[in-house]
């Protein structure tokens, strides 16, 4: 009856054995709690690691300050808020809210996407903190109102509007737009270099830009929305959904967008809408050249001939203004709309 693996026979519980049981119980409970804590720790580490992978995206770039404008829901109530809201409405529906001063089919938010919020489409929060500013365009210190006046004159083709020009100095349109910009820039430091300001400065490509190569790109990537003739498209109520890119309803020859480099930078980042950065740099340059080598309303600054005006205002630009394309002198201007 000798079983070597067998521990001693069960005996009546002695006090010693009871003590052993108690200490074993303590060991068991302590070990169990520790095991649970260890398990929870491991699970927690795995879990938080998974979460980190999601959020480790935004890294600051070249010393510029990242900035996010406040959400629309944060617009304050009261008269101040009303002004901000109206500014936003003008920005989005310029042709309705500032109908007197708009001479084409565009709105501010056609180029300043997402109602002036989107980085690298000249967002208004970055514009607000960089004015007043000296501009070589008109060789003077510009206030924000001066700048907006320029927008109405050129990009919105004020000359073709019912009033024949931009809103007069001191018009509440300026105030409301500025209120909106000021609110968008909430928390941004004045004069700071913000990440995503202005348009992308697209590097030149070895091939340069070519309008005929651009025509191919246009047909492939742009015409579905902006139409073959560049006149954009409207919904069934004739409301413009895709803005006209040239012709009488587009921006005039004084607008910054007529400069191929500006257009190329804008296109590269933002177009096709929702699929930005899918075109190559070369495609962006070429298609910008195609668009900006089409006729559009004349430069309102033009006093004499196109050639004179080209010398006065366009000589330092990468622009087709004053050049002859397919036998047509660009800058002559389209006939007035309507």
């Amino acid at each position: 009856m000798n079983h070597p693996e067998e521990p001693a026979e069960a005996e009546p519980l002695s006090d010693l054995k009871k003590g052993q049981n108690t200490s074993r119980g303590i060991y068991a409970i302590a070990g169990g709690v520790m095991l649970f804590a260890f398990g929870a720790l491991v699970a927690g580490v795995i879990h938080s690691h998974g979460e980190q992978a999601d959020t480790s995206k935004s890294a600051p770039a070249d010393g510029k300050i990242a900035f996010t404008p406040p959400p629309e829901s944060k617009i304050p109530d009261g008269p101040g808020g009303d002004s901000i809201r109206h500014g936003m409405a003008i920005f989005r529906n310029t042709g309705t809210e500032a109908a007197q001063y708009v001479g084409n089919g565009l709105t501010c938010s056609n180029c300043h996407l997402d109602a002036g919020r989107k980085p690298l489409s000249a967002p208004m929060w970055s514009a607000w903190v960089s004015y007043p500013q000296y501009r070589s365009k008109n060789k003077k210190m510009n206030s924000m109102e001066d700048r907006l006046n320029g927008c109405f004159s050129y990009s919105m083709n004020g000359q073709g509007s019912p009033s024949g020009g931009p809103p007069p100095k001191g018009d509440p349109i300026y105030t409301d737009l500025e209120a909106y910009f000021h609110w968008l820039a909430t928390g941004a430091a004045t004069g700071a270099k913000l990440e995503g300001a202005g348009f992308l400065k697209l590097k030149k490509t070895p091939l340069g830009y070519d309008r005929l190569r651009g025509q191919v790109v246009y047909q492939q990537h742009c015409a579905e929305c902006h139409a073959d003739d560049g006149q954009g498209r409207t919904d069934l109520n004739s409301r413009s959904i895709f803005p006209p890119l040239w012709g009488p309803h587009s921006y005039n020859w004084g607008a910054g967008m007529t400069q191929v480099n500006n257009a190329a930078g804008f296109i590269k980042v933002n177009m096709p809408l929702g699929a930005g950065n899918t075109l190559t740099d070369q495609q962006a340059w070429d298609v910008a050249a195609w668009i900006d080598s089409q006729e559009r309303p004349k430069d309102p600054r033009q006093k004499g001939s196109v050639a004179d005006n080209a010398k006065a205002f366009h000589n330092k630009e990468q622009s087709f203004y004053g050049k002859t394309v397919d036998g047509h002198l660009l800058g002559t201007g389209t006939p007035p709309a309507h």
Partner: protein
Amino acid sequence: MLTLGLFVVISFVVSLAALAALIWAISSDQFSFSQRQARIIFEPDEEGQLDDPTISPRNGRSTHGNIEPTKFDLLRSSIDASTARPVSVLIGSAVLWLVIGSAFGLIASLKLHLPDWLDTQAWLTFGRVRTLHLTLVIYGWLSMAGIGIAMWVTPRIFQAPLQSPTLAIWGTIFWNIGLVAGVIAIACGWSDGEEWLEIPWQIDGLLAIGGALCAVPLIRTAFTRNVEHIYVSGWYYLAALCWFPALFVIANIPGIFVGAEQATVNWWFAHNVLGLWLTPLGLGAAYYFIPKIIGKPVYSYALSLLGFWALALFYSQVGIHHLIGGPVPTWVVTLSIVQSVMMFVPVIAVAINQHVVVARNMWAFRASIPLRFISLGAIMYTAASFEGSLEALRSVNTVTHFTQFTVGHAHLGAYGFTSFVFFGCLYYMLPRITGRDWPLPSLIAAHFWLVVGGFSIYFVALTIGGWLQGEAMLDATRPFSASVILLKPFLEGRSVGGALMTLGHLLFAANVIAMFARGRHPASAEGSVA
């Protein structure tokens, strides 16, 4: 809401309290039990000798010398003689159903990637063939083989001849008639329509009677036993033989449950068939045969107590994890999830008990194919239970639910564990029953390697394929068709594995038939050594 939340808490607290009480009882020796009683049957020189009747001097392998017969051998011979006839009938039927059932399984598997094959007859459509496979292997092969093994082992551990063996034979006949009727009904499209409960309830009565007739002799034997202590296998067998009839009858009563209620009953039953019927049958067998073949006892009495009662406590409440994310109350699902994970406790207890003795005697594992079958089966029980506990976690279940992963898991439990254990047991038992050596010993190894290889292919294919299928279904950007297309090569792999397994079963059946065909050895049929 509050009262139902209370229910969950109460049920879990009750289970935990029961577990704690059990642990306390074990650690403070509350179970009066005399080792002497259980051990009186042994002689000091019995341990450490391989006992494997598939190894005979005829094939040149013998591990121990000729030991003089003892009084105990005489007793054992008369015990074996009392069970020989009913066990032979049960096992013969079981092996027949195994072959037919696995053939249907192979057809079903092939149809999943050859959907236009055999499509002109209604009874050969996938939905019926698959059901015939499940019904035949669960109620034909596993249940009958399990009962047969229990019927052979129980009188041995009780050291008493089987009481009323004729009842058991009648039970087998009823069970077989019920099974055949059920199978024909399903093939004709007459089905109760719930998974694991397809046999029409009108026919289930025959199975219930058959099962009861088989259970009565065993329970009677338990009450007339000649040893005081009940060996651990006996606990599992006694409990399973009481659990299963209760489950089967309750789940088959028609007209009480409707809709979502019926689903809870369905899965309460279906999982308990695994947990409270096949698992105890398999574990009981493993608890007897592993030490028996090695000739050394399992690790610890206290552990087997913990393993058995924790299994009863937790396994009975896990069924609703088949309805995670489904239209049943959150608290039932959560309860089943928690209890599924608590299953780690009994599984670890059983694993230590069974694996330690094998690990310390690897020479026996290498030498004996029956032990290899049984011990691999026990390992796969551990694996299947761990996998099942993890699969019940909500995060894992989201992926694996509704996929072939669960099919792989079900086969790990029902095939890898139970069938492997039963194969090993039958290889050990049949020479004892018939008094003859296996007529085709070389087929035993072939059987082993075919089913091991086949099942490995089967399980790996479905586990990987099922997981990928689940991931595809969770990704809304992938169409549903993606989950089907990616699965096809894995389904083909499954057929390859299934074909190997079926081939192995044919070899096994050939061996069994050849053995029975030669009849019982006259000496052992006499029931006496002299």
